[in-house]
């Protein structure tokens, strides 16, 4: 377990924020997650890393959970506080050999965009598109950080996005070429449904990678 100093907090919405910490000697593979908690506290939660492998800081994207124990406390943390970081963990990673050769589709819901953001910041040269499902446009966290035409916003509760509806509806109406490598990150229902749709569109099991958010 390492202690990392908080250097910035960015509030994206009233309930969602990014904590930036000093990176120190921490290394990770883009797509991995850490567990985070206040120094000395036993209460910890898992968060995918939002920043790039190459950044000299470490960022996580956090949504405050109603009645949540850790996310509420973390929201109150201040610059200069220390947080305990454990990890990195997880196998939701890009295949090095595919990065320059394949087309990628990254599908996320809500804060499931976090590891996707890390992917594309780490490898901006990739041939990719991001499909992000949220309820309202406000939840399109830092959408301007994605180059033009790479980010497709699906909003289910208002018509402000590029597509009005869920990501699964978008996939049904916009079939994906079968040679696409797909990464899915978000809630279980989305992953389950999207998986099924992608398989029916001819994308075989190998190129689908999933990470569940709860």
């Amino acid at each position, binding site marked *: 377990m390492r202690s990392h100093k908080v250097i910035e907090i960015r509030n994206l919405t009233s309930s969602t924020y990014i904590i930036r910490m000093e990176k120190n000697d921490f290394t990770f593979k883009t797509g991995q997650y850490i567990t985070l908690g206040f120094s000395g506290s036993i209460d910890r939660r898992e968060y995918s890393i939002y920043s790039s492998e190459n950044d000299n800081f470490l960022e996580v994207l956090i949504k405050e959970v109603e009645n949540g124990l850790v996310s509420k406390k973390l929201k109150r943390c201040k610059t200069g506080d220390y947080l305990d970081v454990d990890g990195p963990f997880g196998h939701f990673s890009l295949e090095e050999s595919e990065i320059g050769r394949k087309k990628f589709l990254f599908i996320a819901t809500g804060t499931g965009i976090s590891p996707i953001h890390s992917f594309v910041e780490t490898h901006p040269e990739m041939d990719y598109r991001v499909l992000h499902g949220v309820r309202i446009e406000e939840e399109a966290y830092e959408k301007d950080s994605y180059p033009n035409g790479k980010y497709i916003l699906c909003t289910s509760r208002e018509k402000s996005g590029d597509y009005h509806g869920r990501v699964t509806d978008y996939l049904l109406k916009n079939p994906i070429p079968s040679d696409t490598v797909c990464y899915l990150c978000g809630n*279980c229902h989305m992953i389950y449904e999207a998986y099924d749709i992608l398989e029916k569109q001819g994308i075989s*099991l190998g190129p689908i990678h999933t990470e569940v958010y709860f």
Partner: protein
Amino acid sequence: MKKVAFKTLGCRLNQYETDALASQFQDKGYELVQFDESADVYVINSCTVTHQSDHKSRNFINQANRRNKNSVLVVTGCMANNAKEELESREEINYVVENDQKTSVFSLVEAHFDGEIIHPSKLNADLFSYGATDKGFHTRSMIKIQDGCDNFCTFCIIPSVRGRAASRPIQDILTNIREVISHGAKEIVITGVNIGRYEFEGYQFDDVVEQILNLEGDFRLRISSIEPDGFGEKFLGLLNHPKMTPHLHLCLQSGSEPVLLQMRRMYTAKRFKEIVQTVRAKNPDFNITTDIIIGFPNEGEEDFSATCDAIKELNFGHVHTFKYSIRKGTRAERMLNQVDERIKTERSEILRNLSDEIKVNYRKSFIGKTQSVLVEKIEGNIANGYGEHYIPVQFTGENIEKNQFYKVKITSIEDGSDPVLKGEII
């Protein structure tokens, strides 16, 4: 001569580690006695994977203390990591040794008898420095290749108690196996927490298996429990190697795709079925055994039915069922919709009956076939052992020797839910 007794709970890795400790104690002059006998030293190698394992571990601690209040009582294993403070507060336990320091249990006990009290945290921490297992409890020779797990399945406490994944150097593994073969081992079982995640200096699990199979000697190789995402095409290509046993314990955990996702497993039920089909295409009677967790949070009737259907479809040789129990600190602890204990019990009963039926049918399919049985126990002229498919076989004969292979033609099967095959030496 001082007496030592062991009790092992849980996985094959624990069994291996006990075998190594038991061998070391005997090599240093201790007499190995049964756990229900009076001993000078009791070592409980505990497990904490479910509530039931914790309960059993506590029960054995009480039993050891009752048998000889003056004995040295050592508790090690996963419960020692997970419930360290609780165990350390119990006066009857002399030492609580975490997994990292388990290799040093003997030196701790020796120091104790020399009047020196060492805190276990000061012991040498090394996951792989176990010695030989030749005086252990098993005829099969278990070889540890890996420890720890980074998968963090949402139900599982093991990453917290066994630590991060670590792999033993491949040369050490091969040297260890050559050594046990030279001492007469006939069956090598590779063990670890998540052996499919083996990785050492570019060598993956498939490479380790290939190199072991290429070693000289009269032995066969058994893979213990493995995750369905833990191997590649190369490994599947090795399954028909003459030294490879046709048995895999492939952990399914649930036949429901939504439940597998919530468990954060690294495969789908569909992928699992494809693997089983691939394996059975190479060898139709290949024995695939599995683990199933019953009553994971949000497991509905439809999910449970999917699990039952998978069991019927995949013709498992054995299904090890566990009722889900909350493990503190895991992600699933915080999941809503925990399944009522009564429902878990009902589903366990259904699944157990189904599994027993499938197991019996699977075993019956061996009648008329031949098994190469490694003899583990002899009583009079009755020999018991396991065939290459990891099915228990009993046969009779004169001058049968333990730890030797015998070709046995299967002629009948016992009654009951865990029937032994019976046969005749060819």
